[in-house]
C-alpha cells in the first residue's frame, strides 16, 4: 500500500501516523507539503492531526483552502481513499468532503484521554478488520471534536450506514458517559456516501503498540493494507 500523508503548517501528528503506517506496511509513506498540488499517485491519502494554521479562525478552515486539498478533493471524487484524523477530520469537513462540522468541546477544555469506541460497521475499507459492535480503546486529543450536523443530515448518515464509530462505555453501552466532547449522538467518526472517505476524532495511530497506549488502532491500518494492496 502506497500512502501519502499531508503536512500543513502546524500539523503535528503527521509523524505519529507515518510511524503507524510504517509499522504495518514496512514502508515509509510519502509526506506531501500543503503547497504541493501535484503529488505522486497513491493508494491512500491521510490528512493528519495537529493545529494547521494554529487552528485560528476555525479549525481546518485555512488548510481546507490549500492547493493540496484542491487536489485531494479531485482524487477523492475519483475514489482514492482518504483517512482524515482529528484536525484532518476538521479539514475535510471544512473542505466539504464529509458532512457536518466539529464544534468546540461542550466542556470547552482540551481533552487527552483514552476513550472507548463502538465500531458501527465492518463494511468499509477502514473497518474491515473489526466486527460491527466491537468495542475498541484508543486515545483522543482535541479541543474541537464535538460533532454537529442538522437533523436531516444525521438521519441521512444513519440511514445509509455512514457512521463509522461512536463513543461508548467500556462495555459498549452508547450513552453520554463515554462521550468526551458532547458530540451529537456520540458520533466519533463518519464516512462519505461511498465509504471511501473516513473522518474520525480519535487517534488510532497512537494505539498501535501495546506498551504505548495499547494496540486496538492497529487493525484499522492492517485493514487498509488488506483492502488496498
Amino acid at each position, binding site marked *: 500500500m502506497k500512502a501519502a500523508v499531508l503536512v500543513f503548517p502546524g500539523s503535528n501528528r503527521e509523524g505519529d501516523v507515518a510511524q503507524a503506517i510504517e509499522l504495518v506496511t514496512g514502508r515509509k509513506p510519502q509526506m506531501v507539503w500543503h503547497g504541493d498540488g501535484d503529488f505522486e499517485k497513491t493508494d491512500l491519502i491521510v490528512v493528519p492531526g495537529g493545529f494547521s494554521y494554529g487552528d485560528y*479562525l476555525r479549525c481546518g478552515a*485555512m488548510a481546507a483552502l490549500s492547493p493540496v486539498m484542491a487536489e485531494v478533493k479531485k482524487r477523492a471524487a475519483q475514489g482514492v481513499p482518504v483517512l482524515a484524523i482529528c484536525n484532518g477530520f476538521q479539514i475535510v469537513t471544512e473542505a466539504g468532503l464529509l458532512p457536518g462540522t466539529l464544534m468546540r468541546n*461542550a*466542556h*470547552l477544555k482540551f481533552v487527552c484521554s483514552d476513550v472507548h469506541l463502538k465500531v458501527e460497521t465492518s463494511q468499509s475499507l477502514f473497518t474491515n478488520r473489526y466486527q460491527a459492535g466491537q468495542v475498541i480503546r484508543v486515545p483522543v486529543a482535541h479541543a474541537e471534536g464535538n460533532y*454537529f450536523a442538522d437533523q436531516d443530515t444525521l438521519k441521512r448518515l444513519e440511514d445509509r450506514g455512514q457512521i463509522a464509530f461512536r463513543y461508548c462505555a467500556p462495555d459498549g453501552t452508547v450513552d453520554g458517559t463515554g462521550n468526551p466532547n458532547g458530540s451529537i449522538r456520540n458520533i466519533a467518526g463518519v464516512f462519505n456516501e461511498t465509504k471511501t472517505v473516513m473522518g474520525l476524532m480519535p487517534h488510532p495511530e497512537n494505539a498501535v503498540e501495546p506498551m504505548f497506549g495499547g494496540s486496538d488502532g492497529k487493525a484499522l491500518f492492517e485493514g487498509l493494507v488488506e483492502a488496498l494492496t
Partner: protein
Amino acid sequence: MKARVHVTLKNGVLDPQGKAIGHSLNRLGFPEVGDVRQGKFIELELDETDKAKAKARLDEMCRKLLANTVIENYSIELVG
C-alpha cells in the same frame, strides 16, 4: 478603508461556548442572563477606496474563508 465583519452561528446550530458563558454568568450571580450566543468580530484594513468594490470583495472573503456558510451567517460593515 476599514471593514468590520460579524460572523455568527445560524439559528439552530449548537453553540457550546455561548451556552457555557450563559451558564457561568448565571452561576456568578447574574440570574437575569438568558440565552447567550458567541460570534466573531473581525476588523480589516483594506487598501481600496471604492465602497461597492470593497463590499463585493469582502463578501467573497466571507464566503471563501471568514465564515463557514453551512453553519454561520455573516454581515459586513464599512467604516471610513
